[in-house]
């Protein structure tokens, strides 16, 4: 049977159901499921409520951290939570009274009345904590990993929202094995790729784990992917920090995303909640809308989204507006019709049209809020472009500071400073004066954020002053000609497309009006920058031999080529091929043209759109997967969870 790649990726849902079923069916009794609220949306991608009912769940509740749900004697309570230590501890504290109630008679171990399912994995030390809480024997723990959730054509997500924080800010690798498990499942379904390129420590670690987990059984179908690309988020922060110019990207800038769905809520959108309430200026806005509507970012469910998702925002919003007009005209036709015609029309066409109209109106509403919220988008883009190309550094700092004062956004203003640090380097003294103003604006309690972001490499590290004579030397204003690591790599990989010396200076002036360059994946950032993932994909797809690839990727540290169980740098791999050329053939050019891209620490829509563009250009198919989808403000927000 011929199963397309798209079908297989959707098939992850079946495996997730199978896994959940195995857990639920292993638990006897009258079952009630208590879900952590954040799990509800992603779980909808796995199964429906009726499916759960079919598996013996009688009722489903939202978990409330404040109080425990009372239980009847014959009921079994199954809690489902994220594997976060904090959440887990709260739950244990809630269940604590159980340990007291139990009388001397030994409970029947087979019939435990409480179960906790941890997503994506029940950490080993959770058992130890359970024992300490005196709940061992009363509560049973389970792993549950739903693996990849198919959000849209070419977009997969593990829906693990706190991974970036754990991995990059706290250096805690607890979630890596679960990710490796999911990649392993991908290998079981889609086969092993001929080659895997990793960029960054966590990515290399994932490959190591994948091997340590053991071999996988052969899939029933021939392999689908020619190559995998696994990269760390911190190797390309810029594509997350820049404001995207495409429709899907901007929707995510303004609206909250929950498992592939955005909530179009004007009163509580992402931009508004970032500002200080007192300095918001106009306070009256349309609050009369009863319930905020939702848009599913899935091209199969929403053709309007499908048509516009990776288009330039200006183009997309004018298309939506045009469509609203066209639909209005279409509905007006009704007035000029004969009665019979009308009957037919109402019966056949009208329901579809009204449904379409509802969808279009939702998009219209969303894009209007985006326009309103972004305010002076052109100014922001010019600022970002100047930051990216390091044009008149001094002015950039004053401009960011002015933005902080007059339009202070908790995450987005900081995001610009981080971008500046990556592209031009921010000196500790400069950070100091910015941080003072920032703390004045958003409170002294945010002081920790600067340390957190420095941890991630997004801001400079502040060093304590020691009262030694060496201080004098370091205080001398020596000119620095150092390039930041980002700039060095970006130049090597030709990611910056709007530099003065580049061949296409066209992009500079033509901000949001109409996309100037349509032949380059940098259109996702208005022709300023090509996301690293897209550039590596096109290099992989266009490589004619390992040697050619090795020269292109020369001088870039942290890249590894994995062929079979061997890991080496691209250069070493090419050299190895030369010496032992007879027995193993070069994997390049790729025989299978499909690529799988996995970003450790959250992908963004600009990346996805750029990869989509590359795939159309090269006739390949690129699937982008990650632990979650992030906008730039979400990434910065991770540093605030203290």
């Amino acid at each position: 049977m011929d199963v397309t790649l798209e079908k297989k990726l959707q098939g992850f849902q079946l495996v997730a159901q199978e896994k959940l079923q195995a857990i639920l069916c292993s638990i006897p009794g009258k079952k009630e499921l208590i879900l952590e609220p954040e799990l509800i949306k992603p779980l909808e991608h796995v199964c429906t409520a009726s499916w759960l009912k079919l598996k013996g769940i009688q009722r489903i509740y939202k978990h409330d951290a404040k109080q425990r749900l009372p239980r009847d004697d014959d009921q079994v309570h199954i809690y489902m939570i994220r594997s976060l230590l904090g959440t887990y501890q709260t739950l244990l504290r809630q269940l604590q009274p159980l340990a007291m109630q139990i009388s001397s008679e030994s409970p029947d171990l087979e019939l435990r009345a409480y179960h906790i399912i941890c997503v994506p994995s029940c950490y080993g030390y959770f058992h130890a904590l359970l024992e300490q809480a005196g709940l061992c024997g009363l509560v049973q723990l389970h792993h549950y990993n739903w693996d990849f959730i198919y959000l849209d054509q070419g977009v997969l997500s593990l829906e693990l929202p706190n991974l970036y924080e754990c991995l990059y800010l706290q250096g805690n690798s607890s979630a890596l094995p679960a990710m490796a498990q999911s990649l392993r499942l991908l290998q079981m379904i889609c086969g092993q790729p001929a080659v895997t390129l990793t960029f960054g420590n966590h990515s290399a670690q994932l490959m190591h784990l994948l091997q340590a987990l053991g071999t996988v059984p052969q899939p029933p179908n021939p392999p689908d992917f020619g190559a995998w690309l696994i990269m760390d988020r911190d190797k390309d922060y810029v594509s997350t920090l820049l404001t995207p110019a495409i429709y899907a990207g901007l929707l995510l800038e303004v609206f909250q995303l929950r498992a592939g769905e955005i909530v179009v809520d004007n009163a509580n959108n992402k931009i508004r909640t970032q500002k200080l309430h007192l300095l918001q200026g106009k306070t009256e806005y349309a609050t009369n809308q009863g319930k905020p509507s939702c848009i599913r970012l899935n091209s199969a469910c929403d053709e309007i989204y499908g048509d516009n998702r990776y288009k330039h925002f200006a183009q997309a919003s004018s298309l939506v507006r045009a469509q609203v007009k066209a639909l209005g005209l279409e509905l007006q036709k009704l007035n000029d019709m004969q009665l019979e015609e009308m009957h037919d029309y109402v019966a056949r066409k009208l329901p579809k049209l009204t449904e379409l109209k509802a969808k279009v109106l939702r998009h219209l509403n969303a894009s209007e809020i985006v326009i309103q919220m972004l305010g002076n988008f052109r100014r922001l883009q010019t600022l970002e472009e100047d930051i990216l190309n390091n044009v008149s550094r001094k002015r950039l700092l004053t401009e960011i500071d002015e933005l902080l004062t007059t339009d202070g956004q908790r995450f987005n203003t900081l995001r610009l400073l981080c971008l500046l640090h990556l592209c031009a380097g921010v000196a500790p003294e400069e950070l100091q004066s910015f941080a003072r103003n920032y703390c004045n604006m958003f409170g002294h309690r945010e002081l920790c954020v600067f340390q957190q972001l420095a941890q991630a490499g997004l801001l400079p590290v502040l060093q304590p002053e020691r009262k030694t004579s060496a201080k004098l030397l370091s205080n001398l204003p020596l000119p620095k000609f150092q390039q930041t690591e980002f700039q060095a790599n970006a130049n090597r990989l030709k990611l910056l497309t709007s530099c003065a010396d580049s061949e296409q200076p066209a992009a500079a002036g033509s901000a949001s009006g109409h996309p100037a360059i349509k032949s380059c994946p940098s259109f996702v950032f208005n022709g300023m920058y090509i996301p690293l993932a897209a550039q590596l994909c096109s290099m992989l797809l266009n490589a004619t031999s390992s040697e050619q690839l090795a020269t292109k990727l020369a001088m870039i540290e942290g890249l590894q080529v994995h062929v079979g169980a061997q890991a080496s740098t691209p250069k070493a791999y090419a050299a190895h091929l030369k010496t032992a050329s007879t027995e193993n053939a070069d994997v390049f050019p790729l025989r299978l043209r499909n690529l799988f891209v996995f970003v450790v620490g959250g992908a963004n829509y600009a990346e996805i759109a750029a990869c989509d563009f590359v795939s159309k250009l090269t006739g390949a198919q690129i699937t982008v997967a990650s632990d979650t989808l992030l906008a730039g403000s979400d990434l910065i927000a991770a540093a605030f969870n203290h």
Partner: protein
Amino acid sequence: MESQFDNTDENYWNRSSRAAFSFDDEEDVDLGDVGARTKTGQASQSSKWDNNEIFNDDTISEASFDNSAALGTLNHLSIKAILSDEALKLVLQEQAVDDQVMPKGVTPEEELKLLRRQIQSTLYSPNLELTAQRLLHGKVAPLEMFKSLVEKRKLLDAVLANGGDAIIGVLLFLKRTLNVTQFNGILQQRPKALEHYLSYLRQCGDVSNYIDTLQRFGRHQEAALRQFQAALSCTDMATRKQQLQRLIDAYASAGVGIIPLYEQVFHSALKLQLVLEKEPLGDLSQRIGDNPTPIEVLYACCAQNKNWKEQDMLKISSPQRFAADQEISPAQYEWTALNERAQSQAYADLECIFERVSGWHPLKSKQFHISFDLTLAVQRLFELQAPATVLQLFLSKMSNSPEKLVLAQRVKCIKAVIDAMVSMKQQQELQQLKQTLPDRSEEQFYCENALKALQSKRWTTDNIKLKL
């Protein structure tokens, strides 16, 4: 993709998510919503729970039942087509937490062998690889037989090489079975392990232990930050102040070096506490919560300030004094005051905010001074519906006439439009503008006068004028 979330089904989910997925279709749908229930009060709760009886089948769940039968074959895709039986079995096996079950149908001899091996590895020589492997797969693995320090270290290094939650698991085991000196010694040599341990302490909310560990391993700056945070999160004002004071003293005298930013912010936080203690914030206090930011307090100070001409610098809550104490930048001060005064419609005070007496030359008259882009000020004032005269005042400070014209047109300030046109000598445009203005309106007079002045000026040519 469409079929798996059939329309009716999706509606059901949305509906039921509101009703907390209770299958009951009873009148009190939010029964299952534990969050909503808390508000109804403790007393009525138990009775409410009794109401919540066994579910009764409703039509909606029947409908989705039909749909879910088809779920097994997603678009006629069966799981067998994508995953072999063997692989599926493996996946399900790997999901299980504990697989220490004796396989069925083994001969007694084999069983004996298996048991022997198990005893061997539990009691005498621990199997390092096997344990690491089991931990990696997320299985329960006994660690108690790792007795000697060497074995413990090896175990930790093995899980460190793999990464994952096992690191914290093993660390907690080590902490339990080693004394503090040994445990810290192990952490000292393994920075990655230390990161994991710190992350564990942080996530489990054990603040004092977290801070101690940071200090012990020489990360004093981070420790100071955490202490600062802990101090600020005290709900009681007195303890908050006390803790801040203690932190400031300790930070200055610890001799571990000082980061100026931290020191400054610690001091400002304490000063802010003192202001909050002495000066009640008035009606604004509800709007800004009990942990306000300096700018929010400044806003409140502005709202309470009566005398803008001569601010009382001895009073800690007069805006200028407060801004100076908190090192609020001039731009931030001006922007906050502008917003507050405009919101309170006290436009007359704006002039005082934006004027500076030059310090070195007291005789010189007061000058207009603004620390951010004038355009932004005008736009914000317009947004806050300031009257045209106020807008004109600000627009008159703009030196670039074309920009001024554009902005004035945008904020519909006719007089400023006229001014800009005059300075650009656009007579024709002025004439046109005059015709659009309502008859005998103030603006029309203004426009006429401007035109007259412009025309008469033509005869008093500049080059004849004496330069004084």
